[in-house]
Every structure is written in structure tokens, then in C-alpha cells.
């Protein structure tokens, strides 16, 4: 059995978290709250590092006055916590972040997820697989036509699209189970290889 305190603490906390599988209990609730607290604390540390590196140090050590402006805007996010009267101040930093996110997302989406993907669907229809891909993409697109009345052709196409989507989701389901099983294997390795030496790996 290991004497490493990290593994001991990690294993006991893992068992406390897993105790939920038997019945909800106080240990599980305590672990839930501990996790949220530690995660929030970790987040604060990372936020602090970013602010110091990108705003505080350039302002104090390099004299870049403009560097403190985003920090002041960031502080405006806390306005609702101080007083409801000043809650509207948070709209300015929010406008920047939301505008930035929307613009970054939309501009690149046009090329990378729209144009490139459509172009890649225009493949030579010389193999069955390519025909299935082309028909599949078109039929899935027609499935998402919700804003006008569908005729016989689009209805049939949408029905094919539904089947393609079902198979896609089935594949995602299979892969999802793969992912979850591997996460559980990781925890079992912690408990039964690192903590209790029941499992030996290379």
C-alpha cells in the first residue's frame, strides 16, 4: 500500500464522492461543496495571474497607462454586487466581451464551417460512399427547413435526413459510452493500482 499522502487523500475523497452511488449522504454533499470551493479558488488564482501579467505589471512596471483600462472595465463587472443602482455599468465590459465573442465566432464560421464544408461536400460521385455522403448532407440540411411549408420532395429528403441524424446520434452514443467507461477506468486505476496494489500495469 502506498505511503504517498496525495494518493491517500485523493483516494479517500474519491470514495466519498462515489458513496453517492449507494445512497445520497453527508460525505457526498461535503465533497460536492469542497470540489466547488476548490474549483472556484483555482479559478480565482488563474484570473489573478492573467490580470497581473496583462494589466497590473505593464501599468506599474512599464508605465503603460492604457494597460489598466481593461482592468478598470473588468472591475465594472462587479457593479451589481455593490449596488443595484450601478448595475447598468456592467454593460460596457459585457458589450466588449460579447461583441468580441460574436464577431470572432461569426467571421470564422463563415469560412471554416460554411464555405469549406460545403466545398468538401462537392466530391466526385464515383463511389457509393461519396454518394451517401452527398445525399446525407443534403437530406440533413432539408430536415432543418422549419420556416416554410415542405413539399413532397423536401418531405422525403427530410425523412432520409432524420435517419441519417439518428445514425449519427447512435454513433455519438456509442462513442459517449466509450468516453465515460474510460473515465471510470481512470478512477479504478487510482483506487486499485496507485492506492491498493491489486492491479499492476507497465
Amino acid at each position, binding site marked *: 500500500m502506498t505511503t504517498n499522502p496525495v494518493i491517500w487523500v485523493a483516494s479517500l475523497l474519491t470514495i466519498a464522492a462515489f458513496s453517492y*452511488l*449507494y445512497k445520497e449522504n453527508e460525505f457526498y454533499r461535503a465533497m460536492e461543496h469542497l470540489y466547488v470551493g476548490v474549483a472556484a479558488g*483555482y*479559478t480565482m488564482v*488563474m*484570473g489573478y*495571474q*492573467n490580470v*497581473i*501579467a*496583462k494589466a497590473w*505589471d*505593464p501599468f506599474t512596471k512599464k508605465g503603460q497607462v492604457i494597460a489598466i483600462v481593461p482592468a478598470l472595465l473588468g472591475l465594472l463587472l462587479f457593479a451589481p454586487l455593490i449596488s443595484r443602482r450601478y448595475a447598468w455599468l456592467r454593460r460596457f465590459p459585457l458589450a466588449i*466581451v460579447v461583441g*468580441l*465573442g460574436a464577431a*470572432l*465566432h461569426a467571421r*470564422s*464560421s463563415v*469560412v*471554416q*464551417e460554411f464555405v*469549406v*464544408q460545403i*466545398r*468538401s461536400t462537392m466530391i466526385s460521385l464515383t463511389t457509393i460512399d461519396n454518394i451517401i455522403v452527398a445525399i446525407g448532407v443534403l437530406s440533413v440540411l432539408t430536415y432543418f427547413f422549419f420556416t416554410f411549408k415542405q413539399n413532397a420532395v423536401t418531405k422525403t429528403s427530410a425523412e432520409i435526413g432524420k435517419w441519417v441524424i439518428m445514425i*449519427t446520434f447512435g*454513433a*455519438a452514443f456509442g*462513442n*459517449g*459510452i*466509450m*468516453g*465515460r*467507461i*474510460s*473515465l*471510470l*477506468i*481512470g*478512477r*479504478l*486505476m487510482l483506487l*486499485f*493500482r496507485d492506492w491498493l496494489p*491489486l*492491479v*499492476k*500495469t*507497465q
Partner: protein
Amino acid sequence: MDILERLGRIDNRIIYTLLVIVLLVPLAKPIGLPVSVGKYTQKSFEVMDKLQAGDIIMLDMGYSISGASDVEPQTIAVIKHMMKKNVRIIFTSCVQEGGSIVENLMAPHEKAGKKYGEDWVNLGYLAGGENAIAATVRDLKKAYPKDFRGNSTDSLPLLSTVKSVADVKLYIFFTTQNADMYVRQVTPYKIPVVGGLISTISLQAEPYVQAGQLVGIMSGLRGGAEYETLMKDPGFGLASMDAQSMGHVLIVLFIIFANISYFVQRSRDAAKRKKGA
């Protein structure tokens, strides 16, 4: 209630116990099922194997620690591969835990002689998700004035020739979120991009590989096992594959039994209704 009906009503705790046993037994006593290598992992390996000593790559540690068991074996295998080839790595991260994860994964390599600042650097986490990725690949030192260890990025020799992602030979990301933001922000720079993805989202990246936006992808624990096979260096990935197989068999059996019970119950109910009518 006969056995077929009972098949559909097993207690949850029995299911959980069965799952644990079925996973533990092959971990303790491996079966040794061979793992074949998929074409996407093969492609990813080949593009990374072509790198030369001294080449610089950028690696984004975009997976959260909760999903580490699925994607970390690939990450460990890739890092080992790169360290073996003396390829230099710039680590970035768009998730909070990334910096700490890098420190843990690189600790044995640093102990083995890989110099921080010359062979690798850990720039740590940058807030903002996709915006952080966009800012990093555009102007690395502007996005990261300091690294995870508090050093000024101007002082790091590895970064002296790197302004943006266009100055590196390859970009590789490991993520539990999605590949979309990397494709959107990195592929316009026209360098090879490889993705390591958690199993749950790897299928969504298929269109990007077919379109050539991603050179290759590695999918979950299986991807890690495949990479370890190509590296001829077995690790956690390969060690877990037998357990993964047994886990899948159990889930499939659950689905089959439950559906058998369902169909039997349905036909009995239909027969009862017919009799009653």
C-alpha cells in the same frame, strides 16, 4: 414475475457493482487483445514523426482535468514522442487547469534533462476561451507577457523566433470541449493542425478531417492506445483497452437484455388486450 420480466428490473446497485467488477478483472488480469491502429491516429503519428530535432510546435492543453483519463494517455504519448525527437514544445492552455497539468506531465522530462525555456515552455492559462486561442495564435508574446512560472516571455530563448503560430511547424490541441474553435482560429494560418479529442466529441470532428482542415485526430483512450502501439511504448492507454472492451460488452448485454424484456412484455400486454377485447 418471470425471469424475462425480471431481466428488465435489476437494481441499479447491482448494475454498478457488475460494471466495476467487469472493469477491474481485466485490469488485474489482462487478456492481451491486440489493438489495431486507425487511419486518423496513423496520419497524426506520421505528421509528427516527420518533425526534426529543433523544430518548434505549439501544443494547447485544452482538456479539463475531469476528462483527463480519456485524453491524457494520448497527450503523454505525444509528449514522449516529441521529447524523444528533441522537438521543442510551446505549451498553451485555454482551460484553467492546463498550466498545472503541463507541469505534472513535463516533470519527468525535466528531470531527465529537458531544459525549461529552451526545450519547452509552459505559458499557462489565458482567459477567454476562443478569444484566448485567437489572441495567442496571432501574437504569442502579446497574449502571454508572462509564462506559468512568472518569467517574462521576452526572456525565454525558445520564444525568440516565434511571433505567431505561423512560425511553428505544427499545432496540436487536446480538448474535452470541441475542435470547432481551434479549426476556426488556427487553420487560417495554414500550418498542419492535429487534434486529440475526448471520445464523446471526436465524431463531430470527422468533417474537419475529411475537409483537410485537420491533418488527423486521435479519439479518446483508444487513440492513446493506438499511439502507444505506434510508439512501441505501452502505457495507460494500452493497459486499459481490455477493461474498455469488457465494459462495452457489459453495456451491450444490458441493452440487449433490457430490450428482450421490453419486447416480451409488450407482446404479452398486446396478447392480454386482445384476449380482453
